[in-house]
């Protein structure tokens, strides 16, 4: 459906994106995830035709659209600012794209009504965007982008301005609409929860190149690089030289030797290990098992459904572990941390 081939964009001497390539299949929900300045917005704008690539090609339905202006591409887009026209009513906003796509007035009216139904706002047609709440504005923005059945829907951080509760609600809602309409979607965000919860495929961007293109599960469970491991989800990091023992490897960390189950690390390598906080068990008693390290609790953050416990290890580094809610652990306690060799991510 969409093919991006060796897309490169320079702003003067500054390289925003370098040789980025990826494909999106019909109906797929793909997320470009990365920190601000990683080039994700530039990529999205280039696909929309709002940014001219320095090099590379963009193909939509097999047709090279690289040199086409935005209005010739049949793309739907929702912006972070919503970009609803403030001088038009909700109805006029949605009708604008339909008219520009050459629909006659009866078709426009019908489609506007259907679009308002789709986003659960059938009674808001006569309102001006300024009279709506942030969440409602985003829904209208989506209705406007979908009304003329674009080949692809581009979403530029549409949930960023919303508060947490609304954001979580909108995620589920957006996902439902996307599946219902079946529109191919490219979503740009710096929020890993957005990316993991909604996408079929996540593209992690760093400094203008892709670090990993994979399913959310693989991105989280098997990150391809230290950047992905550190950017997506929290984790505790260990590093040290590797010595292999059969199908296991032992990494000699300052704290203790850490055993890793069958991985790609080789004898003599310097390995970086990551352990997710939910894979670390915190206990007051030692059991003498593999991968048991000791430390002192420096912070306990109760988050309601769980607690995040920060432990200072003997070498001064910190480890992060999740426990059951409101654990019987206090700052200053000496604790033992345990984790399964199978749950260690080795890079």
């Amino acid at each position, binding site marked *: 459906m969409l093919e991006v081939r060796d897309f490169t964009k320079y702003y003067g001497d500054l390289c925003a994106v370098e040789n980025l390539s990826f494909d999106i299949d019909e109906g797929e929900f793909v997320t470009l995830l990365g920190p601000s300045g990683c080039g994700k917005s530039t990529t999205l704008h280039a696909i*929309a035709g709002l940014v001219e690539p320095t090099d590379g090609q963009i193909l939509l339905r097999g047709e090279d659209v690289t040199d086409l*202006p935005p*209005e010739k591409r049949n*793309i739907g*887009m929702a912006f*972070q600012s919503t970009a609803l*026209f*403030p001088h038009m009513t909700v109805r006029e906003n949605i009708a604008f794209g339909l008219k520009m796509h050459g629909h006659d007035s009866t078709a426009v009216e019908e489609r506007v009504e259907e679009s308002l139904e789709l986003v659960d706002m059938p009674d808001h047609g006569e309102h001006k965007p300024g009279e709506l709440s942030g969440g409602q504005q985003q829904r209208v923005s989506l209705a406007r982008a979908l009304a003329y059945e674009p080949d692809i829907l581009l979403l530029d951080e549409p949930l960023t301005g919303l508060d947490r509760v609304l954001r979580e609600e909108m995620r589920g809602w957006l996902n439902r609409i996307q599946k219902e309409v079946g529109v191919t979607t490219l979503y740009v965000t710096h929020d890993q929860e957005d990316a993991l919860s909604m996408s079929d495929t996540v593209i992690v961007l760093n400094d203008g190149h892709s670090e990993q293109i994979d399913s959310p599960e693989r991105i989280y469970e098997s990150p391809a690089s230290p950047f992905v491991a550190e950017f997506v989800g929290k984790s505790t990091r260990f590093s040290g030289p590797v010595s292999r023992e059969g199908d296991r490897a032992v990494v000699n960390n300052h704290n203790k030797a850490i055993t890793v189950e069958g991985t790609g690390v080789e004898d003599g390598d310097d390995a970086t290990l990551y352990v997710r906080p939910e894979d670390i068990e915190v206990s007051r008693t030692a059991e003498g098992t593999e991968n048991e390290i000791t430390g002192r609790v420096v912070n306990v953050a109760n988050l309601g459904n769980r607690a995040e416990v920060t432990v200072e290890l003997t070498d001064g580094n910190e480890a992060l572990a999740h426990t059951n809610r409101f654990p019987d652990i206090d700052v200053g306690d000496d604790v033992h941390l345990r984790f399964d060799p199978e749950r260690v991510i080795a890079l």
Partner: protein
Amino acid sequence: MSTSRPTVDGVAGSIGELLEGRITNSHLALFGLGFVGVFFILPILLLVPESIAFGTGEPLQAYRRATRGIYVDAFVRSFLYGIVTTAVTLALAYLISYFMAFGTNRVRLTMTLVIVPLWIAYIVRYFGILLFLSPAGPFADLTGIEPSLLFTTPAVIIGLSNVYLPFAVLPIYNSLNAIDGELISASRVLGASQWRTLVSVVFPLSLPGLVAAGLIVFILAAGSFLGPAVLGGPNQTMIANEIAGAFLNNFNIRFASALAVIYSILLVGTLLVFNTVFDLREVLGNI
């Protein structure tokens, strides 16, 4: 040895301390409103009794005289020149403002070029145009072309549009510059060409600035005195020239006052009509 000199900060600080707590917002408003009241409203109101011949058989004789043909012509001309100048100025100002808002990175340079003429006295600028258009001036000497525009209506309109252009550029540029770039992007992605985006999105959103600019230019142009005096002939006399003539040449204060009162009423009337069409509060509130 250390000496303590009074600094600007120090002086401002001690004045601030002195005034601290004694000045409220209503005091501040009083200064501004007081100035306007004493030097604007009061003098205008004084024109009304001045224009009426109390104790004579015909108290409104000055007003009857003002209905004569040449004065009616001057009123009509003032409004027509005002309208034409406004149209020409808005068109030019819109082009310049659009260029500054969307077409260049050198906004400050362009803005300076627009603003600098404001530092030069009107009379100097009108004389420059006078020389430029003069059949015996340097332009004619250099090119051999003898422009025949001088002392005609187009000469006055050129002069007025030129002089009032900066007053139109500022509000129009402000409103264009305030348009969120994502709205323009959205319009393009929704299928509108650049031209269509200008017509359907950019222009409507710049209307407040355009209306404000139109008001300012119209009021300035319709009341102008120097432009027609320098660049126009006897057939380009506007109402300000008639008022000045009655007052300064003929010392007819009563008649000059009557003309001024009529002009003020016509102008306020025009603004009221304008207000019902455009709702100035909404328009100016958006700037």
